[in-house]
């Protein structure tokens, strides 16, 4: 039976009831981090902080936002932007964070690819990360509907139409998703619910899963070295802090993390105050009009690469390849057939695959923003084909890779 004694301090009182000292050890001071890692390993913490910024700014927006087709536009563009003191701050923080969070996600992803941090027991970290990417994409899309401007409406129209599956003509499914023949009140209401409740809840759950998946394999390191965490942490606790290959998560590694977060926040608030325009589409400052399409409909920059894979083909092939691009990254741990989990620079052909993939995605992104005409169409088409071909080639080039 649990035995409680008279507490000697508040800490002791809590300790007897919640074992706070033990929790602190498990979560922080005896959570071991390799010493040989660089600033790219701070991106996870930057993402946590950016998510916190989104939640806090979102809560303030939520107090004045009205989720009806008649009032949504004015509640954002008039009430929040002009009437509410500092309302513009919350909106700009929210918009800039929603954009920047994807930049950081892409850096985080490509860091993982470069260092092979998705193999050798780290598969679940990668898969939960990709689920987070999907959840964030849903969150960003549903949020984009809320101001009910022209881009909200027409992006909603085009994206929900993707679910008709081209020649399958699943119009019933599209109408079910919308709750109407076209995006209207039922549509705005359900995307509002998704944006402020269901998807944020899923994101929080997935962050928990992501961290849990890190627990057993620990984070990778920049030399792809397999570290015996039990032996190295014992060495550290026995007093050989210099000789040990690991350090405590808190406060030791945290201090480095927060240093990077500090630099990020300066950059972030510079954008929020002086350069927020990139996160606000001018077309969305016109209220939604179901009888007038804007001249060009394009998604936010972070969706452009996959949108560009949809565009150059006929509708069925376009949809199939678009679907391929959406899910293929999830399978990376299984498509990479090589046992080597070291930096790409030491992996032969994979090194070129890595840089090639990065370049192709940047090219697709750039072409997705340009109008679908002439030379841009052609470059986009070739980039899309190269993207697909590279994924098909991945299992082959990695199974030919020499074991290190």
């Amino acid at each position: 039976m649990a035995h409680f004694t008279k507490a000697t301090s508040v800490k002791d009182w809590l300790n007897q009831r919640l074992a706070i000292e033990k929790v602190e050890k498990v979560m922080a001071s005896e959570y071991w981090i390799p010493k040989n890692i660089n600033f790219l390993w701070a991106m996870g913490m930057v993402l946590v902080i950016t998510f916190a910024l989104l939640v806090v700014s979102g809560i303030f927006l939520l107090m004045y936002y009205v989720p009806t087709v008649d009032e949504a536009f004015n509640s954002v563009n008039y009430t929040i932007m002009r009437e509410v003191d500092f309302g513009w701050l919350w909106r700009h923080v929210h918009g800039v964070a929603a954009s920047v969070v994807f930049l950081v996600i892409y850096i985080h992803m490509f860091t993982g690819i470069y260092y092979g941090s998705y193999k050798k027991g780290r598969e679940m970290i990668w898969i939960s990360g990709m689920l987070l990417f999907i959840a964030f994409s849903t969150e960003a899309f549903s949020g984009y509907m809320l101001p009910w401007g022209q881009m909200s409406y027409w992006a909603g129209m085009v994206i929900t139409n993707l679910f008709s599956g081209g020649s399958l003509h699943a119009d019933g499914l599209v109408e079910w998703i919308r709750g109407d023949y076209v995006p209207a009140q039922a549509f705005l209401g359900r995307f509002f619910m998704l944006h402020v409740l269901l998807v944020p809840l899923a994101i929080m759950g997935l962050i928990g899963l992501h961290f849990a998946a890190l627990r057993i394999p620990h984070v990778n390191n920049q030399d792809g070295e397999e570290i015996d965490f039990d032996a190295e942490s014992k060495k550290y606790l026995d007093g050989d802090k210099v000789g040990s290959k690991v350090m405590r998560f808190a406060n030791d590694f945290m201090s480095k993390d927060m240093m990077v977060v500090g630099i990020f926040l300066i950059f972030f608030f510079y954008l929020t105050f002086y350069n927020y325009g990139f996160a606000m589409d001018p077309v969305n400052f016109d209220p939604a009009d179901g009888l007038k399409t804007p001249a060009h409909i394009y998604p936010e920059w972070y969706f452009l690469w996959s949108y560009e894979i949809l565009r150059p083909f006929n509708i069925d092939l376009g949809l199939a390849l678009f679907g391929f691009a959406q899910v293929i990254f999830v399978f990376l741990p299984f498509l990479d057939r090589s046992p080597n989990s070291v930096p790409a620079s030491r992996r032969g052909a994979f090194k070129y695959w890595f840089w090639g993939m990065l370049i192709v995605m940047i090219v697709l992104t750039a072409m997705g923003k340009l109008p679908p005409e002439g030379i841009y169409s052609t470059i986009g088409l070739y980039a899309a084909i190269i993207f697909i071909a590279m994924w098909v080639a991945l299992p082959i080039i990695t199974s030919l890779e020499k074991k290190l």
Partner: protein
Amino acid sequence: MKSNSRRGFMGKAFGAVAAVGAVGSLVAMKKSWDPLPSVKAAGFTTLDMSIYEEGLMVTEKWRGKPIFVLKKSAAVMEKEKGNAAAEARNIKIGNDNFMVAIGLCTHLGCIPAFREAEGDFLCACHGGQFDASGLVTKVPPPRGFDIPPFKIEGNTLVLGEVGPEWQTMKDNGVTL
């Protein structure tokens, strides 16, 4: 042993109750997302077809969607002659000939613009084109404009109701 089989039974009994509950809630959740009766009931629009002018495209509204109405001139009709696909889409009311179609690009749903000079439609989203009868002249759109269910009543056209003319188009695969 005895208590084990009892636990086993209780586990299965709970599983059965939970499965019925789960299926029931999924049905309820699916149905809660269906279009509301009021949305479905507002699905009719009546057009007076005597007011349109030849060659002037007018956009009407039905179920929140734009409806293109184009009264075709004799010249256009002359051009369509012999083109079975175009003739099958023609809607005749009295002595007048019309193109009536849902004004959403069959590719991904943008609204194509009518070009009065050319007498055709251009979709700015991905460059699709349609002629005056609503047939595709340039991809990516996979098919001509869809034709909304209609019923001819004298000089008026009721959208949302199925008349014999529309039924024929549907049966012949002219529209979805």
